[in-house]
């Protein structure tokens, strides 16, 4: 088994139900809302039905980790980051550094919410918008 990458493969099938965000919060963070999801489905003012799904790109050299002043975000094997909570000073620099706005912020804990590419959001997408793929380079994200 190689490294898994969460990818947006059918952006134009998204119906904007946020089931993925709820799944991430529920299954990964044991939280009932959608606020602790490590991803976002964005919609746009006045563009009925236009959704953009922002998921972690699992960068080999993540901008979020580079931006972190304390080294709290550690580049994971195969790319992406994990968080050392003890080092985080809640400065939110990492979130601002993610150009695609994929890295999310935990409003309660005041810490980032790195994606672990586990695929729970994939399991709960009714329309196959998301997928876990082995080769992260061939599919574009965000979409």
């Amino acid at each position: 088994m190689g490294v898994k990458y969460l990818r947006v493969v059918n952006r134009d099938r998204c119906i904007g139900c946020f089931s993925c965000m709820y799944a991430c919060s529920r299954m990964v963070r044991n939280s009932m809302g959608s606020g602790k999801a490590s991803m976002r489905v964005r919609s746009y003012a006045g563009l009925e039905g236009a959704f953009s799904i922002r998921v972690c790109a699992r960068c080999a050299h993540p901008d979020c980790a580079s931006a972190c002043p304390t080294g709290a975000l550690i580049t994971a094997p195969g790319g992406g980051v994990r968080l050392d909570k003890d080092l985080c000073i809640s400065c939110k620099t990492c979130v601002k550094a993610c150009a695609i706005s994929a890295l999310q912020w935990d409003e309660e804990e005041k810490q980032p919410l790195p994606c672990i590419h586990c695929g729970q959001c994939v399991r709960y997408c009714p329309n196959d918008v998301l997928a876990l793929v082995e080769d992260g380079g061939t599919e574009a994200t965000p979409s």
Partner: protein
Amino acid sequence: MNASILYVDLTSGQSRVERDEALFREFMGGTAVATELLFRHGDPKGDALAPEAPVIFAIGPFNALLPVATKTVSLFMSPLSGELGESHAGGRLSMALRDAGIDALVITGRAKAPSYLTIENETVAVKSAATFWGQSALATDRILREAESRSGRKVSILRIGPAGERLSPIACATVDGSRHFGRLGLGAVLGSKNLKAIVASGTRTPPIARPKEYKAVYDTLYDRVVRSKEMKKYHDLGTSSNIVPLSLIRGLPTRNFTQGHFEGAEAISGERFAKDFLVQHTACAHCQCGCIHMAELREEFAPYHYSTNRISYDYELLYAMGSMLSLSNPEDILRLLLFTEKQGWDVISLGGTLAWATESFLRGTLSADATEGLTLSFGDGATYMAVLERIARGQGEFYRDLERGSAWCSEKWGGTDWAIHYGRVEPGGYMTGENFAVTSLMGVRHSHLDDSGYSADQKLLNAPKPVEDQVKDQVRDARWRMVMNSLIVCLFARGVYDETVILQGLDALGLSWDGPGLEKLGERALARKYEWKRLCGFDPEAVRMPEKMYSVQTSTGMIGRESLARRLALYREHTGLQDGKTPR
């Protein structure tokens, strides 16, 4: 549940949050809780548009936590019916209220100037809407979604269009993308408070009482919603799949309920819209079904120049602006729906009122002087568009009156016999027979959603059933819907949420209920609504059918005066409404 009630007084600009655990423990949430709040804060004899008249919003224990628990209920005094106003909407509102930690919202007072309300967790602000008062419901959404954007957070926007500002009793309140508190005039009530919009969001993420059980019940429901056939109809063609079948059984109201067969049914069918106009499905927050069907209307406004708009459609819309007006060109219908969406009218009431006006004109009770030159004809889409434009401009007495609904118009302009309304509310799109007549006359909100009467009529075509059993089923269904509307689960998921799974869900959330408790809640909530309605002046002995409905064929034949009277008596008996007694 936080059992938190947010009170906002627009007159003073003050707000406060109160917790009432006893209320939510006893009445669960949603419509049952909102009814109690209406008793506490409303005046059944008061003016619907008075500053002190409350507007109540409530969600229930399942909202935003379990699939397809997407609805928010609103209760108010209806400026259309003059009694209980109740309307439900999806979108993202219940999610946003949940995120903000608010289970109910009570708004009273009148802002000094056009305003909008923002709710961000416990922080409430009343802000000026001076710059966009007068803007359409669609433009207001664009403006506020940018002005009130919250990074990475989901925001819900409820707003009124110009119709609500003009205090039209058929004005709706629009929620997010194409969802509506459509019926009974909430738009006018908000307009009377100088309240253009409500923007809600929050960051609360409550802990799960019993995580393992919660995830298990979630998976059961998810699989039913996505993989079973329970919601397939809504997921695929949507409710507009009913257009052709209902027309085939003569149950699709056509040309102001003259007949139930529409010769243009194929042309405005769900199949036709899917083939030529459907471009996308969208969903309310936390609904994996995604029943919102978006059509695209592309029009050439100058040589080689096109405007493109997206408009949502479903069965009731195609009935109200289609078969009722004898319009079989989908583009005519979409143009009318887009204009209606911008103005913020309830499509069902507006379509019914236009149909009354057309019949009146054709019968000669309404003159060309009254219509100021417009010749109303069934099937004439261009003239109907001209009518809507005149209403929006307030151009002429007749057109200013039209947005007051068919009851008011017919009392002033004549034609009461063919003004098709029940308790002053234009009905949903069914001409199926006496069960539906009982729904419309006796249902607490005079809505086709009060019980499944229209479906019961259709089932009679294949399987006769004693009348008393039919009425008993209606009452049982009306009570059960009180439970669904207290949780609050979208009624499209009524086949997904059986009593067992509901109890499992409540248990997983740490809420203590049992089967008899749910039954009692449904019975009590329905009884309390009738109690409120009676205080407002509703007399269950004096309900009246539109006269025309005794002279037309329905799916199950003619509606008989005596047989209907018998059904109504049975309905009163089985709801405990007989002899003027207030049920308990």
